[in-house]
Each structure stands twice: as structure tokens, then as C-alpha cells.
């Protein structure tokens, strides 16, 4: 669907533990861990070849790494 082609900047945790609505699904598919939902910004290249800046969200746990990098929104081009 897309590839992250730049460093992720502004990474921060936005939800964790019981604050994660889909925590049970994360545990079911990826294992028991201290899951956090994080967000950040990066350049991405879509399947159509277009490169854009986007806000990304993903799940992360120590020892597991990043899972399910998702596009929250595409950012307007800087002029």
C-alpha cells in the first residue's frame, strides 16, 4: 500500500494499556506485551508512485517492534 521513505519525526505515544480499544486483538495476533499506540510524521510513497508527507499511527511494544503502520492523514504539500 505504501512505503515509509524518510525518518519518522515527532514520534509520541498516544494510547497504551487499557486505553487501547483493540488491545485484545494485538495480544491475540502478536502476543502479550506492553502495547502502545504511537504516532509520527514521515514521507511515504504510495503504490501509484506518489510521495507525500503523512501522519502515521502504529502499534509498538518493547521486544516486538512496530506493527501495523497506518496512514491517519495525508498532509498538504509545503509551498
Amino acid at each position, binding site marked *: *500500500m505504501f512505503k515509509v521513505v524518510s525518518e519518522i519525526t515527532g514520534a509520541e505515544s498516544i494510547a497504551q494499556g487499557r486505553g487501547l480499544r*483493540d488491545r485484545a*486483538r494485538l495480544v491475540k495476533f502478536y502476543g502479550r506485551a506492553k502495547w502502545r499506540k504511537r504516532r509520527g510524521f514521515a514521507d511515504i510513497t*504510495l503504490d*501509484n508512485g506518489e510521495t507525500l508527507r503523512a501522519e502515521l*499511527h502504529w502499534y509498538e511494544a518493547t521486544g516486538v517492534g512496530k506493527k501495523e503502520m*497506518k496512514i491517519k*492523514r*495525508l498532509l498538504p504539500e509545503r509551498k
Partner: protein
Amino acid sequence: MAKTRRTLVICVSNDGYVASLERRKIYESIPDAAAAKRGLLRIVDESGEDYLYSAEMFVEASLPTSVRRAVMEAA
């Protein structure tokens, strides 16, 4: 004619997103013109938040009005 109504779609592929999407499940698609022209759909996924996914992961759910209304009210 611009679409402003949320539509219902069925997930047919959840590769890479097994926690966020479930195959054969009905999801709400929120209109997003900028996303649509790039082959993406804005979907309210299992997290309860909306994200952009490839349109190829979904098919439109053509449901009778009464069924559509029941599904939307069940959310």
C-alpha cells in the same frame, strides 16, 4: 456528484493489518476525495478510529436500505 454519505464495505484482505481489520467483516467508509483519487479508502477500523487503507482490500456492500440502516444503527 460528490458523495457525502458514509458507505459500508466488506474487508476481503487484511494483509499486514490482522489486528486492525477482519476479513469478511463490514466496515464504515468515510468519504475522502483526496484519498479516493489515490486509490485509498478512509475506514473506521477495529481501533474505532479512521485510517486510510488500499481500496483493493475492500468491496462495496450493496445492502437493502433496511439492512443498511440496521447495520449503521448497530455500531
